[in-house]
């Protein structure tokens, strides 16, 4: 993975010193909260429901054991012993003190981490496929391009006061494992006539008005990647709406102009910027790419001893095919039945770090589904790995099942929320585990958001749940048929909302209908698409 050189390190160190000074001036009263707020947001420090919350960047979800260990130590030393992995591959700490924030950033800087641009109206963490560099179906590892864009977007002088936040995703396979089409800019590295290039999709997003990003260009040569991104951003910075916070994302601009007109403006700006020499020297991409070479894979057994049924289930659910046939990628579940989705204790983080060192060439990935990946695990090591995960409560064999719920922090943690999402996730996973239905349901992506900002990605759920405020009480809307994968679609609301007990019953009803109606090999989403909403509405509302 990428390692800082002295320029990168100096940049991060300078920002820590700057923030330390800003925090000191705030505590001394030389800065008001209005003056300090945009400054602390640029370093990912929110004032949240219970305390300050710090969002630490994990660039394209990749980190090593040293970094994961530090994240665990920070949880113990400065927080209340745990952190939360987010739907953008970052980590959040909920109980931060302002007086500690600069020290935390300084500690992070010692392991090449930071909280820069994880908040604010700027370009945020660039996300990627959690199986990048390991998956068998990639054109190439997308992360060098994500790293190139990360540096380009850091402290960009023109794009630090955008109309709204900006999220970019880079993948390199036909399969979309990173919800690429639901980003402000989604990039897919493709190959045409043996030459690699970038497909640009612009104007996707969730939130209040979910939209799927249309393709803006089918092939941008890789030596123009940054220039094209700059053109897309400049058109947005100039023409994105600034009159209404809820209409300020690029998806609204693309929608209102129409993809064709937006594209025309981008192409015009791109032609102009080409002459300005905005692109980094191509040698820079080569330099970055050198950090993402394959680890020294060993040949070894390619088959798995499935005699232990529990182990076999875990292998079936939680491992992913690797480009090397003696290896797999293994998913560490942060969704124990009845647990809090995405949370990990300091101790668990240090364990994951040790496991990465022992089993995965010291590399770890964070999934946008709030689980963690060891990307390169030898097949012959799987039993030993699984035994340790199982013992530590990290071995739930439920990836992509109804127990693998994505839930935002919700009203338990977030001041934007209308309803709690975590208790709902806990009750649903407990119920389906208890009844044994999880296994029978197979792939079922259930996502819960505590408010319309949709940080739980409920629009992209096979089953989505949205928490709303109904006359001062928590209420839940159910939606069906969303998908974040390459078969991307947006979920539709079923009808009137439910209280907490009611929505759990509703999930039971729609899954029962699926079990009764499915044909062979149909997933829940497939059956829904075949039958349409009507039968489900009937089952719910009679």
């Amino acid at each position, binding site marked *: 993975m990428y390692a800082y*050189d002295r*320029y990168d390190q*100096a*940049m991060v160190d*300078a920002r820590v010193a*700057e923030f330390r000074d800003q925090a000191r001036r705030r505590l001394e009263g030389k800065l008001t909260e209005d*003056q300090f707020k*945009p*400054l602390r947001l640029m370093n990912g420090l929110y004032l949240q429901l219970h305390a300050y919350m710090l969002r630490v960047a994990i660039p394209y979800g990749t980190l090593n054991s040293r970094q994961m260990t530090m994240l665990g130590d920070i949880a113990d030393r400065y927080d209340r012993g745990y952190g939360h992995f987010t739907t953008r591959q970052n980590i959040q700490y909920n109980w931060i003190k302002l007086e500690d924030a600069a020290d935390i950033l300084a500690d992070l800087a010692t392991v090449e981490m930071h909280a820069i641009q994880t908040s604010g*109206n700027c370009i945020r963490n660039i996300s990627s496929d959690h199986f990048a560099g390991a998956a068998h179906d990639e054109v190439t590892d997308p992360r060098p391009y994500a790293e190139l864009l990360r*540096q*380009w977007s*850091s*402290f*960009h*002088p*023109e*794009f*630090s*006061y*955008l109309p709204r936040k900006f999220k970019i995703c880079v993948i390199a396979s036909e399969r979309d494992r990173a919800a690429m089409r639901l980003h402000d800019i989604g990039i897919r590295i493709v190959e045409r006539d043996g030459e690699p290039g970038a497909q640009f999709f612009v104007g996707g997003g969730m939130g209040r008005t979910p939209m799927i990003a249309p393709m803006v260009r089918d092939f941008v040569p890789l030596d123009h990647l*940054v220039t094209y991104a700059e053109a897309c951003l*400049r058109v947005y*910075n*100039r023409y994105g709406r*600034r009159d209404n916070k809820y209409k300020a994302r690029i998806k609204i601009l693309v929608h209102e102009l129409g993809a064709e007109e937006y594209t025309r403006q981008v192409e015009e700006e791109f032609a*102009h910027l080409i002459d*300005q*020499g*905005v692109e*980094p*020297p191509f*040698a*820079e991409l080569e*330099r970055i790419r050198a950090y993402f070479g394959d680890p020294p894979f060993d040949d070894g057994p390619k088959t798995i001893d499935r005699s232990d049924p529990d182990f076999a289930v875990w292998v079936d659910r939680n491992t992913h095919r690797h480009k090397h046939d003696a290896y797999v990628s293994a998913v560490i579940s942060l969704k124990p039945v009845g647990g809090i989705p995405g949370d990990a204790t300091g101790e668990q983080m240090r364990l994951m770090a040790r496991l990465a060192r022992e089993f995965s060439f010291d590399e770890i990935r964070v999934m946008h589904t709030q689980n963690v990946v060891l990307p390169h695990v030898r097949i012959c090591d799987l039993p030993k790995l699984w035994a340790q995960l199982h013992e530590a409560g990290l071995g739930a064999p439920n990836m992509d099942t109804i127990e693998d719920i994505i839930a935002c922090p919700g009203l338990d943690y977030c001041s934007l929320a209308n309803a709690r999402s975590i208790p709902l996730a806990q009750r649903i996973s407990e119920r389906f585990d208890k009844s044994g239905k999880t296994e029978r349901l197979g792939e079922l992506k259930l996502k819960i958001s505590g408010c319309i900002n949709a940080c739980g990605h409920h629009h992209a759920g096979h089953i989505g749940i949205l928490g709303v405020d109904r006359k001062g009480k928590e209420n839940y809307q159910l939606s069906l048929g969303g998908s974040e994968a390459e078969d991307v679609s947006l979920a539709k609301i079923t009808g009137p909302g439910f209280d907490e007990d009611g929505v759990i019953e509703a999930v039971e009803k729609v899954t029962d209908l699926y079990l009764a109606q499915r044909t062979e090999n149909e997933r829940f989403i497939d059956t829904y698409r075949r039958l349409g909403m009507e039968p489900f509405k009937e089952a719910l509302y009679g």
Partner: protein
Amino acid sequence: MVEPTDFGTSPDDVQFRFRDDERVDHAAVTVDSALDQTNANAVRIEPSDDARLLIPFLDRIALVEINFPAFTDGRGYSAARILREAGYEGELRAVGDVLIDQLSHMRRCGFDSFAPDKVLDEEDAKRAFATWENVYQVAADTSLTGRRTIAQKRHGAGA
């Protein structure tokens, strides 16, 4: 209706200036007016104006003010870079809600003069202008001053 003389900042409002030449001593006109008046040499750009409309007349313009009614409205950064990219060599002045924390980005986008609504602390400003020992991306400053980006330094390239 706003008279041209009501418009813009005077040389006295300029708190920081990185030029040696004479300051324009009269008010700026709107972009619309500038397109009509062939002798206008000072223009004020509002966030919703298209800076590119000035490109045919840049060689007769000595001062462009770009207004930031609220520091959160970042359109002026694009307008500034666009003008510098088009070869504009006159004074480029940031006016309005200009605070300490925007100075370094504004400088990088090509502003060489600053007339903030509220007077800024001189020491803080000096520090702010020196924020970036190195920079990741190309901007107006790299083109105008021959400053190299980090990537260029890594590979002994460019200026």
